[in-house]
Every structure is written in C-alpha cells, then in structure tokens.
C-alpha cells in the first residue's frame, strides 16, 4: 500500500509538468492550429531563466587571498557576490537561496517576449501550411534554440537548488497512520504540484471568467464568425501564444530543483507531452490536464519493481501503449471534441 501511495505522489509531480506543457501545446493548437514542436524548448528556456538569475545573483567581485592557493599554485582568487555586499550578508544570501522562485518574475516577461517573437517572426508564416511543414519548422527551431543555450551554458546539467526552507521531505506516512519514514516526499515536489495546480486554475479562470478569455474561446470554436463580428482575433491568438510560452517557461523554472537544467531537457519532455495532448484530445484544455496527471501516475506505477517483474520494460512503453489504445478506440482522445481526429 505504501508503495502505491508513493507512486501516486510521484505521478502527481511528473504529471504536473506534463500537464503544464500539454496545456500550452493545446492552447496553441486550439487557437492558432499550429502543432508547435518548439514548445519543449520554451520549457527549457524557462528553466534557463532560473539558471540565468542564479548567475546574475552570483556575480562577484574578486579578492586575492594570499593564504590559499589555486590549482596552479597561484594565490587564490576569492569570489564574493555583489548582492551580499550591497544588501548585507543575510539578505544577499537569502536572495541567492531563493533564486528559483524569484526567477518566476524574470521568466514571465522573458517568455512573453520569446513567445511573441517566435509567433510573429516565424510561426505566423506557417498558419496556412500543412501540419507537416509546421512540425518541421518548429522542430528545427527547437534544435536551434537548444544549441544556442548549449553554446552559452554548456552541455552539463547545472545545479539550481530549491530554497533551503524546502529541502528535505515531508513524512506523509505518519499522517496516514504508517510508521515514520515509510512514505516520505520531497517538499519541493509538493510545492511544484501546488504551483502547477494554481497555474492551471489561473489559466482556466482567465479563459472562463474574462472577456478576453471569452473571445478567445469563441475564436477557438469558430474563428470566422468572431472575425466577422469585427474582433481582431489574430491579435488575441498571438497573446495566447505568449501566454502558452509563459506557462511553459514558469513550469520550466519551477522544475529546475527537480531536474538540473540541461540544454536537452525540453526535447525529453516534448514527445511525452504530445502524447499527453493526443490522449487528452487535441484542442481540449481539460483533456490535456487530465491526461497529463493520468499518464504521469501510470508511468510511475509502471516503474514499480512488482510491475516490471511481470512486464519487463513496461516503464519505457506504457505511455505509448496507452496512446496506441486511445488512438485505436477513441481517436479524438479522452475529452476531445467529436469529429476531431476522427475523419
């Protein structure tokens, strides 16, 4: 029982990341009709916003310490962050410690700008082109973006730890009547789950309860009619692209303490997220969220030793098996609109 609860918890944070990326993908597909293979790169750029802020906060002045030597035997250059000098030792250290959550503030304008440039500069030219062209161009863009990031940040993963207040684990087992240390779960993963729930709720609330969101939803349902009413739906859809980029970026920022950022991380999530979108139903926002969590939990269960003993390698293929079954039995996905993908 304890193993099952643990894997459900694992699935929730994995599913949170899938759901956030898939939500953005669905927003873009639903509004602009574009299959955006560069969406994983947006997740990766978000993660590197956290790395960038961490580096900015760690910009240091150098003093020479004659009492210590560097690897060549020269006096050691000791680096001291400016933030500690400017804001005091304690506050400076706290700023550095909280660099990941603070990076959310940096990531929102950066991602909105990246999304805007991406959409206006490249993707809008492919709206009326076949999906194959869109996939090729966005996939190419993703590779370019990851190589640019690799050029500036290198290929190795970069540690971006969670704030000290969130290190360690929460003992769920004790809450549920188990012995101590039986079901423990890292605090930051709980934070990530809560964060993604808030973001998902905010996106739904924005679409559901604002005039802007209402127009976007109307545009998603019938773009031509909305246009005939004199509403510039293209402008709103461009804004939605920016919003999707910001959601992916924030998901990336907050994921950095779980998975040390490297230039390839977007690509690792992208394929899985597309499967999530297909299973949830192309264009269905609730479907994307539901299938994100569902597949995250399924993947975690498939990694259990007991399951792998029965079906070796199942952890590697479970998501794709589910996708095959869904596509065969319900091509429009779990919550897709009738007719979509069913032609």
């Amino acid at each position, binding site marked *: 029982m304890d193993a099952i609860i643990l894997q459900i918890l694992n699935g929730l944070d*994995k599913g949170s990341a899938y759901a956030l990326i898939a939500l953005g993908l669905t927003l873009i597909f639903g509004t602009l009709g574009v299959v955006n293979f560069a969406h994983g790169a947006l997740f990766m750029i978000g993660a590197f916003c956290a790395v960038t802020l961490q580096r900015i906060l760690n910009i240091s002045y150098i003093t020479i310490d004659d009492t210590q030597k560097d690897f060549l035997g020269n006096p050691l250059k000791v680096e001291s962050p400016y933030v500690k000098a400017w804001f005091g030792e304690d506050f400076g250290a706290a700023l550095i410690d909280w660099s990941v959550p603070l990076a959310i503030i940096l990531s929102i304008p950066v991602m909105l700008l990246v999304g805007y440039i991406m959409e206006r500069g490249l993707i809008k030219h492919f709206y009326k082109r076949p999906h194959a062209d869109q996939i090729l161009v966005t996939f190419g863009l993703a590779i370019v973006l990851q190589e640019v990031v690799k050029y500036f940040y290198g*290929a*190795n*993963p970069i540690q971006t730890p969670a704030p000290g207040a969130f290190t*360690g684990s929460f003992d769920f087992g004790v809450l549920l009547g188990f012995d101590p240390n039986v079901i423990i779960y890292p605090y930051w993963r709980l934070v990530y789950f809560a964060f993604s729930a808030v973001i998902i709720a905010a996106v739904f609330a924005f679409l559901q309860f604002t005039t802007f969101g209402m127009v976007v939803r109307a545009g998603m349902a019938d773009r031509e009619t909305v246009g005939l009413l004199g509403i510039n739906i293209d402008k709103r859809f461009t804004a939605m692209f920016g919003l999707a980029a910001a959601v992916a970026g924030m998901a990336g920022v907050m994921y950095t303490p*779980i998975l040390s950022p*490297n230039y390839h991380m977007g690509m690792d999530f992208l394929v899985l997220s597309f499967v999530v979108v297909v299973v949830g139903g192309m264009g269905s926002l609730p479907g994307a969220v539901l299938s994100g969590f569902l597949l995250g939990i399924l993947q975690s269960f498939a990694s*259990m030793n007991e399951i792998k003993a029965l079906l070796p390698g199942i952890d590697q293929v479970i998501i794709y098996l589910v996708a095959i079954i869904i596509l065969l039995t319900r091509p429009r996905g779990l919550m897709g609109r009738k007719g979509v993908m069913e032609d």
Partner: protein
Amino acid sequence: MSNSNFTRRGVIKTGAVAGAGLALPTIFTASSAAAFTNEPTGGSVKIGFNVPQTGPYSEEGLDELRAQELAVAHLNGEGDGGMMNTFSSKALQGNGILGKKVEFVTGDTQTKSDVARASAQSMIQKDGVIMINGGSSSGVAVAVQGLCQEAGVIFMAGLTHSNDTTGKDRKANGFRHFFNAYMSGAALAPVLKNAYGADRRAYHLTADYTWGWTQQESIQASTEAMGWSTVKDVRTPVGAGDFSSYIAPVLNSGADVLVLNHYGADMVNSLTQAIQFGLRDKQVNGKNFEIVVPLYSELMAAGAGSNIEGVYGSMNWNWQLQDAGTQAFVKSFGEKYGRPPSNAAHTCYVQTLLYADAVTRANSFNPCAVAEALEGFEFDGMGNGSTLYRAEDHQCFKDVLVMKGKENPTNQYDTLEIVETTPVAQVTYEANHPMFGGDEASLGTCNAG
C-alpha cells in the same frame, strides 16, 4: 568411350596463364599501394580525435579535445612539453612522430555508436588517419574499436569504463589506458567496508547498457565478497531525467546503501533526487543510509554540486595528485585553458603520447609493429605511477583512486578529495577472468589493413 583433349602440357600451360592472370591485379596492387592502412608518405602524419562534441557528454568530449590538441602541440615541440618531460620513455624528441609533423582531424561521436563509427570511418577513409583516439562512452568505444580492427588502424580508447572494452570485446588493434568497472569495485570495496561496515544491504540503480551492466556486476561482486548483500538491481533507462519512481521503492526495500551505477547527467539527476527524497537523512537497520557513486568525473561532480559531499566513488586520475607527471600536465593544461584537466582529458592526452612513443620505439607506423611495442610496455611519469600495458588484453594496470565528495569546497574545482590511492596489485585480475569474457575472450590477430 569418350575422347579427351586434355594433355599434361596443356593443363600446365593453362594453369600458368590463369595463375598469372589471377595474380596480376595483386602484383600491381602490391607494387603501388602502401604496406598498411594510411601509411604516411609525406612530411606529416595525421591522427583522428573522435570525441563527443555535441550531445550529453560534449563537455567531456571538449575537455578531451583540449588535451589532445595539447598533446599534439607537445609532440611537435611546441609549449613546455608537459608530460613528455616526466615520461619514463625518452624516445619522443618533440619533433613530431618519427620526424613527421603531427596533424589531426576531429570527429563528433555525439555519444552514439553508429554516429561514432561513421565519423571514425570518414576519418580513416577520407582523411587518412593512422590512429583514432577519444570517446566518452563504452558503447561508442566498443563500436569504434571494432571498426579500427577491421580497417587496420590503432584505436587508443578514451573514457571507457566497461569491462567489455578489454574483456569480451577486446581487439588486437585496440588499447585502453582508462581503468574499468572491475578495478572500481576492487578499489572501492575495502574503503566502503571501513567507512560503513561489513554488514550492509545495497540497492543498485543501473544504467541499462554495457557500462552499467558491467559496473553493477563488478560492484556487487566486490561488495558481496566483503560481506554486503544485494537487495535488488533495477535497470534504468539512459537519459530518464526524473528517477523519482525508481528511487521511491528504495525507501522501504530494507536497503541501507544506494549504489548509483549512473554517469553524466543521469548521475547528477539520480543523486540529486535521491538526496531530495531524504535518503541520506534516513536510518535503516540501525545505520545511516549511504549513497555510493562508483565512477566519478570532475565534470559530473561540478554538476551535482553540494549533493556529492561525502559520497564515495573512484577515478582513473585526478589533477590534485602530487607526482611530477601530474603537476607537469596540470601546469601545461591550466596555463593554456585556465582550468584543471578532467580525468577524461588526462587519459586522452596520455594515450596520444603513448601511441607516439610506441611508433618511435617500433620505428614504424605499421599498426602491428605499434601494437607489439605497446604490449607489455611498462612506463612511469604519466600521473598514475608505474603502469603496465598488459599484452594479453591491452588493458593498462595502475593504481586506482578512491574519491569522496569534498565536504567544504573552497572553489569551483575543489569538488572531490582523494581518499586513497589503491595499489595496482589490489585491482589486478587474470586476463581470462569470467567478467572479462573468460577463456573465450581473445584479441584476435593484429590487422594492418
């Protein structure tokens, strides 16, 4: 009754003509072609550096490339000579190899076996390289070594730690300076016993490819030999990213040690996540839960940050060693690139010099003559103390370093500390050891092309 036109004279004449006809192309070939693959004819000789320049191990590949370029400079008499000044063999004079200026071409393995083979093939066929050096993966090393054997060039392996490279997949044209998984186990086990006791239960997470399998087998064998038991070995996909679903079952498995048979980004992620799950804060079986990372690299240690503090592992070499060879290399490398070299860089640098030295001692570029010069060659002054290139399997035998993540690092390079230098005798094994292919493993015969 039948008539036959065959006569003895006719058969001999026909046979002679046919024989001459068949031999003709060979005679022409022999008189016009080189005696072996890519025999250097002009004033220069070209070698190939096949390293991951893109992909997940590209940081290691680029560090290898830095060291290889440095080795070429030293061979050509540029710079301060580095380890050529401390190398026990004094055959190299800084005038290239056998008086021919050393040139090099580079290839990108992308840490993919098929890409690495294609890249090596291109360097052999198009660029005419006579030796290939480099790589940061055992899968790649085994693939490229096989290709070099077929093509008739020497392969001086880079970072490859799987037992198979000089075990069941050993080749007459292939040579490995880097240590292997068996040696890691043999060096680590006594240190682990001293640190954590003889009564421990280990849980292995293992990268699912040749290197992970042989490392797990080696560590399990060496730790069980000193009294530990193995609770479970779970194979994990390479590049899994989030290992939480593999780490969670460790919590209640009864294990009190987690062995991470992961390398590169996988190791950084699995270690970080294991720490996040509070494994090192746990008490199991009345003991502190411990984590072991059998194979370390400086670049990985930097990626893992503070998570690596106090965690044991092993290395082929480390820039903090105090011998003259290490100091000469660190000085050369550090002054040129502003950073200490990794152990991947070190092994590629040493392999390049060892190849050049063997050619010089053999007075020939013929790969079979070079192989003969390397086989059974004993040397010193290259950072690992007295070292033997064993003839039976082309594996270097030397001391092994047991490392520990530094508790209070003082700068970005101060990530690991040397706990023990395990003497070579402790990590030596028979060439027909079962983990290395047993009696069936064979180098085959040298191929000169």
